[in-house]
């Protein structure tokens, strides 16, 4: 097995990029968790629906 000269090989991903990637994954997981569990509250324009709108939706859907 012969090693290629260092200049012919990709020097590798810099450490700061790896650190960035770890932080991005952790943040994405936290945001995903908040959305799935509902801790982040409802998202989108529908979240301005107050009790009247909610009652109207429940009535319309027969609940």
């Amino acid at each position: 097995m012969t090693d290629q000269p260092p200049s012919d090989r990709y020097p590798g991903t810099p450490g700061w990029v790896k650190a960035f990637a770890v932080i991005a994954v952790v943040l994405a997981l936290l945001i995903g968790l908040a959305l799935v569990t509902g801790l982040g509250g409802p998202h989108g324009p529908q979240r301005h629906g107050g009790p009247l709108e909610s009652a109207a939706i429940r009535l319309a859907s027969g609940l």
Partner: protein
Amino acid sequence: MRLAPGQRRAVLATHLALSVGWVGAILAYLPFDLVTATSDEPATLRAAYAAMSLIAGAVIRPLAIGALLTGILVSLGTTWGLVRHWWVAISLVMTALATIVLLIEIQTIEAYAAVAADPAATADRLQGLDSTLLHSVGGLLVLLVILVMNVHKPRGLTPYGWRMQRRAAETLRQR
């Protein structure tokens, strides 16, 4: 595609103005957002949501889209490229994500402003509206990280950028 030096300076100046303007517009938006998070006064809430909707829709949205588009133009029109350097690629992804989240959030802000503008909306209804503080502070932090990264330009080529650099060096050697 390479921009001529004069074009490059003009696009870069536009990109800087739009990007820094985006940060400034969020700073102008934040006090109103803070008011909606802390105040129970209906008249104050009505005014704050109206101001937030105006700033977000008429100022922040065009600045964000403009910053993203001019950023892509500057990258493609210079030797930096879009995905040759990690700092450029990461800045692009973060700016694109911030713009997408912003465009979604603006729909919510405009919906809140519509409720706040309704004279029939009761105090309870107005106090029940959320603030967007988490999104605006988060967005500001993302923009500041991009800003610092664009000033420092940390070293590091992507595998694609490294191949392109090597190919260019070989071409020069053969001449």
